[in-house]
């Protein structure tokens, strides 16, 4: 099981919800994963992953090995029913990530693929 997590919105370091994942993190580094990034209009983004899509720019978080299960349990609750946890890949291998599975008609695509630099 991978110990890495891809985050692309409010869970990134220094963003609103960083304190949800920070207790379990040992390292962070910039990361890109292919997919489409959207603005939900509610203050947080959504991602739909697709190997043929342009890059979503985010952060790979390395989780403490003995806390991976606790971290994922916490994040599953945090993300709620609008997202599902899947495994995606970057150049360094697999990572957990949360993908939007709720209604897409309310979403506005972020062409840059970056939540920190949307335009």
């Amino acid at each position, binding site marked *: 099981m991978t110990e890495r997590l891809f985050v692309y919105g409010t869970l990134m370091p220094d963003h609103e919800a960083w304190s949800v994942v920070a207790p379990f993190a040992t390292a962070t580094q910039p990361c890109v994963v292919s997919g489409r990034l959207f603005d939900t209009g509610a*203050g947080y983004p959504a991602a739909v992953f697709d190997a043929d899509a342009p890059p979503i720019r985010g952060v790979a978080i390395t989780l403490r090995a003995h806390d991976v299960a606790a971290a994922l349990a916490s994040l599953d609750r945090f993300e709620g029913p609008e997202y599902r946890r899947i495994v995606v890949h970057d150049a360094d291998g697999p990572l957990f990530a949360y993908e939007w599975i709720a209604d897409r008609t309310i979403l506005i695509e972020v062409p840059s693929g970056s939540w920190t630099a949307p335009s």
Partner: protein
Amino acid sequence: MQVHEYSVVVPAPLPEVWEVFWYRGPDRPQPRDGKTKIHILHPGDEVGEGLVRHCTFPVPRWLLSGGIGKSWEWLTEVKLHDSWRYDAIGKPLWSRAEGHTRLEDLGDGTTRVHFSEKYEAFNPVMRALLERRVHQSISRDNDAILAALSGGVKYHRARRAREVG
């Protein structure tokens, strides 16, 4: 941003009051209102530094969340028998809180508990419309907090008596 500071005096020595906040055993009591639940997701180190907990609690029904709010809390800067900090993310309202709790030994077998909290909704529109109302609704009055802490002290005295007996 909402700022809330208050204190209560609990009729119990400081170590007993500390235990009410920090006892992490599986028999840790849940709040009695039946709606508030606290689930420890990570216990932190030996003093609780790094503890992570998930809380569900009542919120106004007009927030359209079924009357249930959720928070993810991370406790740090833990000084045994003294104080700690918490950082919390809440839904709904999509918000964050940062707070400190400090225990003061009053020297007569009682303990003053100092709470301070800053609360902020992320969305500027929601902040203007709802932040104050939501924070007021989830910040319980001093009597309720004192009753909860006093109840916790009684629970742990009974628990220890059972363990000894």
